[in-house]
């Protein structure tokens, strides 16, 4: 039997509703009069319910809870616990992950060479330093994140090798090399519990690697249906006048990828299934500065940009638009003027514009190259703009553009890759 199909049956599927409910009592018992040890309470709390509570812990608390006892320590490797964790999957955490902008400089405090990222929890406003086990400290750069996996892409201008890493479970999987040699292609990366879908666009090396041109897009997909071969396919030529930034991030919404194109500003839109491209005009095109497309929890594409209207006496501002009905933009938010006065001023003095990344209800704004800690967090649900606490590990101005990262203890979908491309440590 094809080992591929055998593997598929190992992917834990969400439990059916009835199995959520545990039977009665856990077995641990003791009878002292300690007020915490009310026998009626904890003696009745079934193990499965306790595990459910643990599964809801945010990642740092979960990893601390592993120190409680041996059983809790082992939960991370227990199928029934991981199934429970996947069962509560709809409970999303909209965190962010940043790396150092200069990825050559990956020597940490102990003079160890290792790949690491900086995790930001926008709910608690806390930073964590997160190592990436197995990812080689050089030769690869972080490119995208989805469904708990972080995608690293090889730096060499050659056929690209992609590594998918889950920093919490410590797994690493490798994709086959791309068909085309590329320099710094734009990437669209979408991971669901049952599929991995990657599209690379542009930066094709042509003329024996002497020139770079935006020629083609290619796609890799694995899912449980068996409709896709686990190899790259060139899917389409790129539109003639597209001009993507290096290592651009394509935003995925409902089967479409959106990528910012420059000179002139345009949003290149790609329908993955039909492999067709078209353009969407941004609003206020002539006055935009540093536009970027951003995903959001609303399911609509957002455009974030600064407005600099030099010809009119209109205050400079930072605005957020939402794409309605495919072509109409509606302005939904503006950074409060006082905040933008500071932000815009720092932006001018650093001269590198600003970075922006969205995840769920949050949008993060940062100024690359800035020595002041001006990171801004916007919550679309509460409409609050906050200053982010500075990253204790690296200056905010030295951080790369962030990724929308969802911490997940397990990403069983990677088993779809195992049978052909076993996870092996990449030779350093």
């Amino acid at each position, binding site marked *: 039997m094809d080992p591929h199909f055998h593997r598929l049956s190992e992917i834990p599927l969400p439990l059916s*509703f009835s199995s*959520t*409910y*545990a039977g009665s009592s856990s077995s*641990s*018992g*003791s009878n002292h009069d*300690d007020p*915490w*040890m*009310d026998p*009626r*309470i*904890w*003696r*009745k*709390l*079934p193990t499965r*319910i*306790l595990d*459910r*509570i*643990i*599964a*809801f*812990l*945010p*990642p*740092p*608390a*979960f*990893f*601390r*809870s*592993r*120190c*409680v*006892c*041996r*059983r*809790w*320590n082992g939960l991370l490797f227990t199928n029934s616990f991981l199934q429970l964790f996947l069962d*509560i999957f709809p*409970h999303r955490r909209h965190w962010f992950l940043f790396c150092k902008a200069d990825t050559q400089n990956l020597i940490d405090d102990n003079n160890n060479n290792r790949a690491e990222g900086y*995790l930001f929890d926008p709910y*608690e406003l*806390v*930073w*964590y*330093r*997160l*190592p990436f086990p197995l990812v080689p400290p050089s030769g690869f750069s972080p490119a995208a994140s989805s469904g708990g996996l972080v995608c690293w892409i090889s730096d060499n201008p050659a056929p690209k090798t992609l590594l998918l890493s889950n920093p919490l479970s410590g797994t690493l999987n490798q994709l086959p090399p791309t068909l085309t040699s590329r320099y710094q292609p734009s990437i669209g990366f979408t991971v669901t519990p049952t599929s991995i879908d990657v599209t690379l666009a542009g930066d094709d090396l042509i003329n024996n690697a002497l020139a770079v041109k935006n020629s083609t897009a290619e796609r890799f997909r694995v899912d449980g249906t068996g409709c896709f071969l686990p190899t790259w396919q060139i899917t389409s030529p790129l539109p003639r006048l597209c001009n993507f930034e290096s290592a651009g991030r394509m935003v995925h919404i409902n089967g479409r990828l959106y990528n910012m194109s420059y000179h002139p500003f345009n949003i290149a839109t790609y329908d993955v299934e039909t492999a067709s491209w078209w353009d969407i005009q941004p609003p206020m095109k002539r006055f935009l500065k540093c536009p970027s497309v951003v995903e959001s929890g609303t399911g609509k594409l957002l455009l974030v940009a600064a407005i600099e209207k030099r010809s009119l006496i209109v205050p400079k501002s930072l605005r957020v638009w939402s794409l309605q009905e495919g072509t109409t933009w509606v302005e939904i938010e503006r950074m409060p003027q006082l905040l933008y006065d500071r932000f815009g001023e720092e932006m001018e003095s650093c001269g590198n514009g600003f970075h922006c990344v969205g995840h769920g209800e949050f949008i993060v704004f940062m100024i690359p190259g800035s020595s002041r800690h001006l990171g801004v967090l916007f919550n679309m*649900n509460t409409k609050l703009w906050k200053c982010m*606490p500075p990253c*204790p590990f690296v200056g905010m101005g030295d951080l790369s553009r962030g990724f929308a990262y969802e911490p997940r203890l397990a990403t069983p979908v990677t088993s779809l890759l195992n049978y052909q491309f076993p996870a092996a440590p990449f030779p350093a």
Partner: protein
Amino acid sequence: MSTSTDNNASITQESGPSAAVQDIQKKIVVRTADGEVFNLKEEVAMEIDIIKTFFQEDSISYETVMPLPNVEGWEMVKVIEYCTKHVELKHKVDGYKERKAFQALFVQNLSTKSLLALTNTANYLEVKYLLDFLCQAVSEQIKNKDVDYVRELFGVENDFNDEEYEQVKAEAPWAHENLNNDLH
């Protein structure tokens, strides 16, 4: 008691006596462990799977008072409160803020011990969304607590020796770094 024709007349009048309207809505009666009796509106009662199964699937008459020997009166009050709100919000298009505000108030005066008892009850009564909410609420309360607190709360014994404990801690040093948060 009003006859059925009287009830129909109440429906068509614009301002009928509220008691008559309540007669039309079916009520389900349960009795908790401490002898308290609760009248639930049918739509709320059907949110509680154990009740739904008892009356609908086993076709027991609504006249029967269902015993809930594992549930305390105060717990039933809370469960009814949550399910009633849940049913109310089902019909609203954008109830996000309202739900969040309600949830915050719901757990506000509950000790962790009471939360645990309520969680157990939600499991017994089989109300999945309430169970999930309560498990999440408990995990929120304990997420920044130290290891000893958690052990005491759940009655778990530490079966690590010092060396093993340090080893487990060292596997995820990033989780134990507390440079700018309030771990205690």
